[in-house]
């Protein structure tokens, strides 16, 4: 088991290296640089800036320089946020994104599993249709509609919750963004669980459990659920990585200091180091969560073994 994990993590290093190299050069292919804004800079001033940030060197030299710093765990200074290094920016943004993403994920799992199970148990009833309708709504209405709407209704009209802001992660401030993030996930998870649960309820081992005369609740929760969550687990790998690394839409609309915005701000401002930093974080999350998914599979499905 441990050997497997180590092998997987070592195997991720070339992948990450490739991602870093590709992003580095792709970023530089985009026309314009970090100092090209509506307000143009004096030629001499631009030259000074390029020298301060080593942009006057040939590209391969900048690449080696970046790799050298990276090897020492240094993501470099931000080109735009000049009072911060990229580590500092990501270090203050990542906990916010993780806190939001993890809460949303948890909510989505609980609610999705609950709704999906109920729908499966009452197949083709009005509850089932209701859940399917809500799920379709959750998937089709985009978050850039949901977020301002929630903020307008609960923040401005009803004055029940803050219309935006982080407020150092207060529960009231987190509620609306978490709902916005969780909504489409609830929908997906409910649908996945419903489908696999229906299948699981018809499977042999559940029928056997029933035949033993086990209580219905126990059959559903222990025996059917274990099989029914497998598709959700494989869905959750990439979904969790995406949720935990922040959403630019939700963060912008609610004004939250997560790292989702850095990715977009960085790309638009050509803040090369900041974009690289976020790319690395997202890549690491995807690698790690795919590994976790595989390990969970082994734990849940007795047919899967890693030795």
């Amino acid at each position: 088991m441990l050997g497997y994990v180590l092998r997987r993590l070592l195997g991720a290093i070339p992948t990450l290296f490739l991602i870093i190299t590709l992003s580095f050069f792709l970023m530089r292919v985009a026309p314009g640089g970090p100092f090209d804004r509506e307000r143009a800079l004096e030629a001499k001033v631009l030259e000074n800036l390029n020298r301060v940030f080593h942009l006057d060197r040939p590209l391969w030299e900048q690449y080696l320089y970046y790799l050298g710093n990276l090897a020492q765990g240094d993501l470099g200074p931000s080109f735009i946020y000049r009072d911060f290094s990229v580590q500092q920016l990501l270090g203050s943004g990542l906990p916010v994104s993780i806190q939001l993403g993890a809460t949303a994920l948890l909510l989505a799992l609980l609610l999705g599993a609950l709704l999906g199970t109920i729908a499966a148990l009452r197949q083709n009833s009005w509850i089932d249709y209701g859940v399917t309708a809500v799920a379709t709504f959750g998937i089709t209405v985009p978050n850039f509609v949901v977020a301002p709407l929630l903020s307008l209704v609960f923040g401005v009209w009803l004055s029940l919750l803050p219309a935006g802001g982080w407020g150092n992660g207060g529960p009231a401030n987190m509620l609306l963004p978490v709902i916005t993030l969780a909504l489409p996930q609830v929908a997906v998870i409910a649908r996945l669980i419903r489908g696999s649960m229906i299948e699981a309820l018809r499977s042999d081992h559940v029928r056997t459990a029933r035949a033993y005369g086990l209580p219905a609740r126990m059959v559903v929760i222990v025996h059917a659920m274990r099989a029914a969550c497998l598709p959700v687990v494989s869905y959750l790998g990439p979904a969790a990585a995406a949720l935990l690394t922040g959403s630019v839409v939700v963060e912008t609309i609610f004004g939250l200091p997560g790292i989702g915005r850095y990715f977009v701000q960085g790309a638009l401002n050509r803040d090369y180091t900041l974009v690289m930093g976020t790319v690395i974080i997202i890549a690491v999350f995807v690698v790690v969560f795919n590994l976790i998914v595989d390990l969970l599979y082994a734990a849940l499905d007795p047919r899967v073994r890693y030795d």
Partner: protein
Amino acid sequence: MLRMAGMRSLMAGALVMAGVFAGASTALAQVTYVRGNDANPETLDQHKTSTVAEANILRDLYEGLVIYSAKAEVIPGVAESWETSDDGLVWTFKLRDDAKWSNGDPVTAEDFVFSYQRILNPATGAKYANMLYVIKNAEKVNNGELDPSELGVKAVDDKTLEITLENPTPYFLQLLTHQTSYPVHKASVEKFGSDFVKPENMVTNGPYKLVSFVPNDKVVLEKNPEFREADKVAIDRVEFVPFEERATCVRRFEAGEVLSCSDLPAEQLQSLKKRLGDQVHVAPYLGTYYYALNNKKDDLKDPRVRQALSMMVDREFIAEEIWSGAMLAAYTFVPPGIGNYEGGGPKVEWADLDPLDKEDQAIALMKEAGYGPDNPLELEISYSAGENHKNTATAIADMWKPLGVNVTFNVRDGSAHYSHLRDSDDYEVARAGWIGDFSDPVNFLQLWESDNTGFNYSKYENPEYDKLMDQAAAETDLAKREEILRQAEALLVEDAAFISMLYYSSMSLVSPKLKGWEDNIQNAHATRWMSISE
């Protein structure tokens, strides 16, 4: 993780601080002003600064030699008085005795000398170093040709500062109000280097000091008890919240969470006015939205073509219909209300013509130049991505149709658009804007000097224009100088060097609870002039 630890100790510091304040100010509750800002500050280092969002914060943190009053008039700041030599080249400032840093140190002339040398030192990488090129040897220092010690700024004694200029500069005091002229605390910068901007290190000399700065969250300031006029500062704490998404600020304003927004979504202006009445402030601003016409391109070489194109642009329609009244129609480049230009810009003869007459004249000009329906002119409009920029370009393409002009579009994101204008000759018509840094026509007119390659997007070259600009620079009589500048601008109109289209307005939301907000052309609103009533 390291950052988190830092944050925690910082918050603890803020709590202790709040405790001290609560203890000192008896039972009075702390007055907090949550203030919407345009964007994140990219830096709080006054020598690396370049944006309006930074200006708004730095104005509260620091005090320059002179400052803006609530109405943006230049008034004494750290300097209590000043005099100029007869040739207008040497300025001597007398600093106040009670000007102090937030750690209690006195503000000295040496702090200013150190600050000017630092911003012009090429190693600082200051984006706005050129603001100070009017100071003797400044450009050479910034080019690395001279040592910073050669700069024309010296401390005569602790409280007397002498600044020598390259040319007599009637707008020099205006320049000094800009954040690039704020002093830094020499000892802290020497000790912490570029980290002097961190909340735990920063020493300021203005009405407020820095408590915390978390990008995309907020910048928190608290009253500086050492400030010389601290007893007149009514608001204890300011939280600058960045709003890249303007509509988000509007929602938080309507929810009562922020007391002012520094910008508004232009497309919602009419409905906002209806809903919020006089809480919506729209005021003239020092900025011009224009289309550069590449004078070096074969199609646009002929001034008659450029003139015809300019005449066909219905500015009133674009200002009212596309920008919902958030912009004003512009026929000349220098915005009205700017300092040292009381007489306003030159007269544009065709501006008041009947639209049909205008069209006839424009078509005739094109015909003279050899263009018409049978020989259409193919033009490309380049603009930076944005809904209103797109609508403007589309409308203009339509307005040019009667001239037989066929338009194609080239849209890029901001960075790509502006780097293209700077580095390439390969564009014809290009959207651009200019926001003035100081209130003097020179700040606008210098764009069109032929040697100003980085900014002169029209690649306009007229030796007569350059000569007039040189004359204006040497002229010490303000009235004569104004007349020369007006002649220069008249040349721009005559040559149709580019298309002046709109003057920017500043748009703000201001809560009735917030007192002391005065609309002004600089859109400068220091918190120290304001108070909050429940």
